[in-house]
Structure formats: structure tokens, C-alpha cells
């Protein structure tokens, strides 16, 4: 272990390129590894499942974006009332966030689907209502659980973001005659979102990583498709490795997309 390097003004022109000798060596090792995986493992099932896999990826992304967007819309009031809301409402929101963040998502999902879902069925009014065709399916429960979870985690982030907007900027808006709603719409909210943006990337990746849980309540996403492959082919590793690769790619794309978005809005000093 060498001594801790003191960060200094002068940084030697250190190649961060992909093509340093040791990187080339590592890449060769990885290429070899991938070749072994491709060559010695069984991949003949891939063409048969190709269409379903693409469908599954689509479902996963649909689940991700729908829950993230709706969850975020919910997170805004959750964060806001904790900062300015009347005391009872603030406590309620705080309790909600603690409750959701304090219990595993898997348990919440099962509670919703097997617990609450089966309660619905006991009421003939619900069974005969127009809602029933939806309530008897699995995705509304998966959607709700994921959405609530995102709302709770992001609500906490938004709370910090709302509270962190400098008071002076709000005061300036007031001094120029903005009404409460205009102030919220034009200054407070956009400024808070601006502050929350960097954490949003991380939260969205976490959300992506939570989506496979819905497969445990019969929602068909890419994880469910891979489970089916595992059960039908009795292969242990190949489908799981492919699945890991798929999620890794999705994460990479997400992070990249968010970075593009962030670069469009300078966040220096925010």
C-alpha cells in the first residue's frame, strides 16, 4: 500500500484511454472469457425465445417508465408537504415514506397482490364493476407496488430538494409579485427538480433493478421470460448470464441517457 496521493494542481498527462497496455490485456482476457462462455455453454435455445425476450424487455421498460413517471408525480407533493404542508399532512407523508422505505418491496408486492387483491374479490360490488377486468390481472398490483416504492424514495429526495432551494430566490420571486402558484410552478418546482436531477439517475437505476420482482406475481417481464427458459431448458447459468447482461445494458443506456440530459442543464453551483 503506497501513501495516499495528495491531489495537486498538476496532474501528469495520465492516459485514460481504453488502449493502455494493461487494459488491452484485460480486454483480451475478457474476450477469451466471453468466447468460452459462448462456445462451451448452450445457447441453442436463444432463437426460439428471441421474440419473447424482446417482448419481455419491452414490458420491463414499460413497467420502469410508467412507474417512475407516475411515482415521480406522486413524489412531488410528498416532498412538498413535508417541507411546507400543514403539520398533520407533513407527518402523514413522512410516515408513508418511512413505512415504505422500511419494509421490503417484495413483501409489499405480495401484500398487495395476495392480501389486498384477494380481499377485493370478496365484494360482489367490486367483482361486477368495470374495474374488475383490471383488478383480476397482475400488472395493476405490480405497477402500484413499484410506483409507491418509487414515490416514497423519490419523495425523500424531493423533500431535500425543496428544502434546499435558497430562500432568497423564493423571496425574489415574491418581491416581483409572483402569486403562490406561479412561484411554485416557475421557480420552486423547477429549481427543486434541477437539484434532484443528479440523484434521479441513481434512483431510476434502482427502480430498474426492482422491476423483476413483479415476475413473482405472474407479471410477464424479461425476468419472467428468462425464468421460463430456465424451467423449460433446465439450464442453470446460461439464461441467468444473459439476463444479467440484458440488465447491465439497460442500466448502461439509462445512465448514458441521463448524462446527456444532465449535460444540457448546467448544474454547477446548484
Amino acid at each position: 500500500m503506497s501513501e495516499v496521493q495528495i491531489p495537486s494542481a498538476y496532474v501528469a498527462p495520465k492516459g485514460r484511454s481504453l488502449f493502455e497496455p494493461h487494459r488491452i490485456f484485460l480486454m483480451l482476457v475478457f474476450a477469451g472469457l466471453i468466447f468460452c462462455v459462448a462456445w462451451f455453454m448452450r445457447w441453442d435455445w436463444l432463437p426460439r425465445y428471441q421474440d419473447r425476450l424482446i417482448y419481455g424487455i419491452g414490458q420491463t421498460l414499460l413497467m420502469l417508465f410508467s412507474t417512475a413517471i407516475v411515482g415521480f408525480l406522486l413524489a412531488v407533493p410528498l416532498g412538498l408537504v413535508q417541507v411546507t404542508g400543514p403539520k398533520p399532512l407533513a407527518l402523514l407523508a413522512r410516515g408513508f415514506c418511512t413505512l415504505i422505505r422500511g419494509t421490503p418491496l417484495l413483501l409489499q408486492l405480495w401484500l398487495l397482490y395476495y392480501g389486498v387483491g384477494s380481499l377485493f374479490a370478496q365484494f360482489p360490488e367490486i367483482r361486477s364493476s368495470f374495474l374488475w377486468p383490471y383488478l383480476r390481472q397482475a400488472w395493476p398490483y405490480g405497477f402500484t407496488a413499484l410506483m409507491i416504492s418509487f414515490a416514497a424514495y423519490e419523495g425523500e429526495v424531493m423533500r431535500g430538494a425543496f428544502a434546499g432551494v435558497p430562500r432568497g430566490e423564493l423571496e425574489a420571486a415574491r418581491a416581483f409579485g409572483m402569486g403562490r402558484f406561479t412561484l411554485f410552478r416557475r421557480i420552486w418546482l423547477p429549481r427543486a427538480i434541477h437539484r434532484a436531477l443528479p440523484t434521479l439517475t441513481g434512483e431510476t437505476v434502482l427502480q430498474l433493478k426492482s422491476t423483476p420482482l413483479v415476475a413473482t406475481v405472474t407479471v410477464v417481464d424479461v425476468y419472467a421470460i428468462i425464468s421460463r427458459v430456465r424451467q423449460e431448458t433446465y439450464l442453470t447459468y446460461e439464461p441467468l448470464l444473459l439476463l444479467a447482461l440484458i440488465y447491465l445494458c439497460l442500466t448502461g443506456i439509462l445512465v448514458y441517457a441521463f448524462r446527456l440530459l444532465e449535460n444540457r442543464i448546467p448544474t454547477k453551483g446548484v
Partner: protein
Amino acid sequence: MDATLHLLSLTSPGWGGVLLGGLVASLQVAFGGYLLGLLIGTGGAAGKLWGGPILRDLLEVYTTVVRGVPELVLILILYYAGTDAVNQLMALAGLPSVDISGLAAGIFVIGVVQGAYSTEVLRGAILSIPPGQIEAARAYGMSPLLALRRVTLPAMLPFALPGLSNLWLIATKDTALLAVVGFAELTLVTRQAAGTTKAYMTFFLAAGVLYLGITLVSNLVIRAIEKRALRGMTRPGGAA
């Protein structure tokens, strides 16, 4: 639901004892996995900061993969591949295959996942130490190891504590995912109890209360630890 409350009693035919057993199993895995993760994280952070280029790149791959793949998938892969690999190694060494208990496998799996996150938390914390603190240690003739032990590690603590507390809470909840590999932790025994008795709501709510209890108690303990560890180190509300 009131009618099913007796199902929670601690002795048979109540399932309370089984739930508590699951809770203990969950806590064991969470604790073991967390400690293992800290161990990996300490090594990982040291490697990322002071290691050679190859080690650094490999650690980067490790943390990127673990943080980009759902825990559920990692758990499945590690659960099968991890024990498989151990047994293959044992076979290579000419030893009989060992019996890897669900507990050990669970700790291993959670530990590997936690390790990646700990690596980042600890690395970030070490980088947050004002460089002058470490420079002063060098200026007074401390050897690198002594400086690490006496200055770097303790000075890092205030920066690492929030992240490490968070990781502990994540560890307790990630144990629920071991249900998918049939490890009898709290979530799985809850499902078994619910399935057998059909009292789904009762058991899921009971498990929820137990998990929430863990979180709330943990929060209290964390706050106490933070208060002790940071005692005096920062001026209340002021700059450190």
C-alpha cells in the same frame, strides 16, 4: 382478520414462533452479509485508491456489474454459481465436496452485493478527508500503515457513516430476496404460513411490522452510534 390473530401466537398451532425463526435467520444473514460486505468494501476501496491499474480496473468491473444488475438476478447467479465454484475447487484440491448451508450461501450472496456498495462508500469517504490531515501525519513521520490506522480510517468515519447506515438498512431488506432461492428467512416463512393458513393479510402485515421494527430500531442505534462516533468532531451546524 381478528379471527386470524391467534395464528400469530408463539406456540403451535400459532405460527409466531416460525415467523420469529425467520426473523432471526434474516437478521443473521443481514448481519453476516453486512460484515462480509464491509470486509470486501475495505479491501475494494483500498484497491481502488492505491492498487495497481489492473486491480483498479477489475474492481471497477466488479462494482459496475453488481450495481447494474438486479439483486434478484445476482442472488440467483451467486447462489448456484458460488456454491458450485466452491465445490469444484474442493474437487480440484482433492477434498470431498462441502456442504454449504443456506445461511452461508445467503451471507455470501448478500456480502458480495454489499461489498460493491461498501467499496464506493468507503472510497468516497476517504477521498473526502481534507488532504492536509493525512499530510500532517506524514510530516510527523508516521509510516503509511500507522497513518492509515491512526488518521485515515478514523477521520473517514464521519463521511462514511451515513452511507454505511444506509447499506445496513438495504441489507436487512435484501434478505427478503433470498426467498426466491428457498432460504427460510422471514419473507419465505411468511409466505409458507400464509399459504398454509390462507390468512394472507394477517401474516404479510405481521411480517411488515417486523421489518419496520428492524428499520426503526436500526435507526435508533445508528443515531446513537453517529452521536458517539461524531461526538465533538463537528460543531453543531457549523463547518467541520
